[in-house]
C-alpha cells in the first residue's frame, strides 16, 4: 500500500465481502444491465454474511484496504433464513468497537443489497467509494 499512498492520483482500494445469494447476484445484475460503477472494489464472495469472520474485516484493514464493505441479503431474506440476522449483531458490535478504538467509521461499511437491486449495488459502490476517497488513504492499523 505504501507505494499507492505516494501517488498523487490515489485511488482507494475497497474490499467488498458479499454473500453469494443476494449481493453477488445483485452485482451480476448491475454488470448485465451495464450500469457503471467505480472499479475500486475487489469483490470477495462468501456463502452468507453469517459466514464472515469479523477477523476478515480487521485483517483486510491491516493488509492495506482503504475500506471494507460487507453486504448481504436484506434482513429476513437470507438464503439460510437467519444467517444475516446473526451477522447483524456481530457487525453492529464490530463497527461500534472499531470506531471506538479510533478507526474512522466510514472505513467499515455494512449494507444490504438483494439480487434484484443492480441499480442499488452500483449506487452503494459509488457512494462508498466517494466516502472512502474523502477519508484519504488508510494509515491506522495498516501494516508497514
Amino acid at each position, binding site marked *: 500500500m505504501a507505494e499507492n499512498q505516494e501517488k498523487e492520483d490515489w485511488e482507494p482500494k475497497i474490499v467488498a465481502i458479499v454473500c453469494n445469494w443476494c449481493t453477488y447476484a445483485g452485482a451480476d445484475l448491475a454488470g448485465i444491465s451495464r450500469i457503471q460503477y467505480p472499479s475500486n472494489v475487489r469483490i470477495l464472495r462468501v456463502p452468507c454474511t453469517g459466514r464472515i469472520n*469479523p*477477523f476478515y474485516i480487521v485483517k483486510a484493514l491491516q493488509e492495506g484496504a482503504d475500506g471494507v*464493505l460487507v453486504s448481504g441479503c436484506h434482513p429476513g431474506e437470507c438464503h439460510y433464513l*437467519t444467517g444475516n440476522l*446473526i451477522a447483524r449483531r456481530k457487525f453492529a458490535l464490530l463497527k461500534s468497537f472499531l470506531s*471506538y478504538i*479510533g478507526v474512522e467509521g466510514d472505513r467499515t461499511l*455494512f449494507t444490504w443489497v438483494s439480487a434484484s437491486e443492480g441499480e442499488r449495488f452500483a449506487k452503494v459502490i459509488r457512494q462508498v467509494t466517494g466516502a472512502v476517497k474523502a477519508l484519504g488513504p488508510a494509515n491506522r492499523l495498516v501494516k*508497514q
Partner: protein
Amino acid sequence: MENIETRLREEAARLLAEKKVDVVIGYEPGTLPLVATPCFITAPEDAGRLVFNPFCVQNLAKFVTDLIAAHRDSQKRLKKEEKTKKIIGIVARGCTSRSLVIQLQERQYGREEVVILGVPCNGYVDNKKMAALLEGQEVREGRLQGDKILVTTARMDKEILLAQVTADNCLTCRFNNPVIQDVMLAEAAPARDVSGEYAPVEKLSRLADAERWDYFMKEMDKCIRCYACRNACPSCYCRSCFVEQSQPQWIGLGPDRSDSEVFQIMRLYHMAGRCVDCGSCIAVCPMNIDLRSYLKKLDSDGWNLFGHRAGATLEEPALLSTFAESDGQDFAFEPE
C-alpha cells in the same frame, strides 16, 4: 471472612469425602505475604488449606475447562461405557460464577459436572495499586485486620485501607454475589454502587477519533504479546487459538506494531458478550495495558444495543449465538 473459610473447608471436605466431587478448585495462601494462589484439593484432609480473602485475584473458572479437557483427553482410548465424568467443585464468587455460566451456555460441559461453592465477594486487592502505595518496595510481612492491611517492608510499616487498593472492576461490580451456585457459604454481600460502571468508556468516548486512536496505539504499543491475558481469561478456552494458527496466519510474528494492535482488537472482540469484568487479564498483564476501557465498551454495547449482560443468567443464550428480529441496524449504510 473467618466464617466463610470455616464453612468453605467443611463443605469442601464433606464433598470430597462423600465423593460428590473429584477435585475442589479454590485458593490457598501463596508463598509470599498478601498473596493467594489457586489450588486443587483432591483429599478431604487437605481442605484445611483453602482460604478466601481479598487477595484471591484470579478467576478460577479458567481451570474448570482446563481440567475437564485434560480429563477427556485421558479417556480418549476408553470404550464409551467405561468413560467417567470428572466432577469439579469450584469456589465461585460473582465473576467466577458468571464465567461458569458462559462456559455452560457455550456447552463446554454439563451442569452436573460442576459443583459451585458460592462465596460473596467484596472485591480483591489490585497488586499494582498496592505496589504504587508502597513505592515499589517488597512486602516483607503483611496481614489483614478488619478493613485494613498492615504491611511491613524493608523501610516502613504501613497501614493501607482495603478500599484504597480494591481493583477498579470490583469497585463498580454489579454481580458481587454468585449468579448460580449449589451451596452458598455465607450471607450475600451488600450491593455496590454501579453508577460509575462505564466511566472509562465515557471518558474515552468524549475524545475525538484521532485522539482515541493515539490512545489505543499508545496502550497497545506496550504489548509484548506474551498472551498472559489470554491464558488467564476463563472465556479463552479454545484448544487452538487464532494467534498460534499458521494456516491462515492471522497474526504476524514480527515486531510490526499493527500485529499487536490486530491481536488485541481480535482478542478483545472475542470477548463481546463474554467478558465478565473479572479483571484477571488486567491483573496478569506485565505491561499494565488499559484493557478495561475496551472490554467495558463491548459490555456496554452488549447492554445498550441488545440488553445482554455476559453470563448474567443461564436461561438466556449467549449474545452472539442468537438474534432478535428487532435488533437495531442504524449502523448499516443506506445509499441516498
